[in-house]
């Protein structure tokens, strides 16, 4: 009996010992966890900044809303002055996002595809820490696509602009991250 247990223990120990090299890793879950960490880090920084740029309450004075938006955007951009494309999406999640976006694109009708470029002038160039151009419409992100993407805190949103996929800070009107070239070149005539 004791011998049997020893054999079993040895066998199990051997298998367990080999496990770290062979255990399957859920790459998507890992990418997701990494993305969440990056978003959390952004939110932490944002939270610290909002202590100095307080939330705006409802007001009849649009100048106050505009001033707060600019101040918040500027403060965040200053605090992330060295931020570059992909810093929040992360290298692994970027791969998954591109895949999700490509699959979604394939599933869409020509009319749906056209809608993603609607009312946007060609040749837009967007960078991290840039204010989202206020003269551009905010292209709707299709609801079915949103359901496939990782959820974001209310302060952040995904947006398409031309061939860019953006992470935008809603109240700071700030481009937090960009993923370029996620949609095919435009062929629709305008």
């Amino acid at each position, binding site marked *: 009996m004791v011998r049997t247990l020893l054999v079993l223990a040895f066998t199990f120990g051997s298998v367990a010992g080999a496990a770290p090299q062979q255990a399957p890793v859920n790459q998507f879950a890992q990418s997701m966890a990494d993305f969440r960490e990056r978003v959390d880090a952004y939110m932490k920084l944002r939270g610290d900044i909002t202590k100095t740029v307080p939330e*705006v*309450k*409802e*007001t*009849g*004075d*649009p*100048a106050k*809303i*505009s001033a707060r*938006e600019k101040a918040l955007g500027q403060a965040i951009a200053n605090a992330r002055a060295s931020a570059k494309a992909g810093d929040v999406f992360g290298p692994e999640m970027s791969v998954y996002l591109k895949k999700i976006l490509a699959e979604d694109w394939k599933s869409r*009708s020509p*009319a*749906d595809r056209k*809608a993603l470029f*609607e*009312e946007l002038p060609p040749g837009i160039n967007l960078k991290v820490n840039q204010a989202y151009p*206020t*003269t551009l*419409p*905010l*292209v*709707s*992100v*299709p*609801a*079915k*696509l*949103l*359901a496939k993407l990782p*959820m*974001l805190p*209310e302060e952040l*949103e995904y947006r398409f602009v031309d061939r860019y996929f953006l992470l935008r800070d*809603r*109240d700071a*009107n700030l481009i937090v991250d960009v993923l370029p070239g996620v949609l095919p070149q435009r062929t629709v005539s305008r």
Partner: protein
Amino acid sequence: MRFPHAFLSVALAISGITCVTATPAPVAPSRPPAVQQTASSPAPASEVLPPREEDSVLFAIIGDSGTGSRSQFEVAAQLIKSRQIFPFEFVIMLGDNIYGSERPQDFVNKFEKPYQALLDGKVSFYAALGNHDDPTQRFYKPFNMNGERFYTFTKGDARFFVLDSNYMDQAQLKWLEEELSRSNDRWKIAYFHHPLYSSGEKHGSEVDLREQVEPLFVKYGVDVVFAGHEHFYERINPQKGIYYFIQGGSAKLRKGDIRRGPLTAAGFDTDFSFTLAELGKDSMRFQTLSRAGKTVDSGTLALAPDPKRPDNATSAAR
């Protein structure tokens, strides 16, 4: 005839469509006073129909309005004028409330000035966000959004569900289902920017959005849905028992864009327009007027009994 343009309650001999036989009754106004007549509110528009029921909910609908253009001011003038006969208490805005830049002066030129007489008359505005609207508009007090992208409010027996169709994420869908499920209101009205059904050539129906929200509307008995985005007026034939309207022509116009088909109950794409609505005990009466003050569509829609709602409609579309 007490009313110059009383509704024709015509029984539509179409299967599944019945009519509300409405008997117009005058209303002793226990409502807020109409706005004072000013230079921008000339003599009452003769075609505007007065309210028919007491204690009904009167409101106006405008969409894609925030241009600051002459056409916005002209539609606004008719809207102001109509209130002398149809004293609506509030206006719902279907998005694209401020086009282009959103500097403080834009809020003045594209909202406050055109509707000054209404604001002075204590008319409330309840805005939905359009694709040209910065979500920070939700902090602009005159839009009554309580700082939220999506929100709900009640007026009399009616609950309004105001959605952000630009960004229908899971959080919003969850919120919508919770709010709809707890609503026992007689009327459930939803409005947002992008139309679930549209005969517009430029945009058309938002099928993706429809797949997400329509099941909730059907499940919880939403009665009427208003949307904008398309720069015209269209009344859609009832879909799954729900009445759909598009009113996106209150300052922008896409002439001749309606491709009339099975969806179209009525359409108007040759001039700017706005809509007036009265939520009564058992029916909603509506009237859409052009910027010239001419009626382009009007009718009465039956409030279907919950939970099974037949497609009822009475219309005197013109």
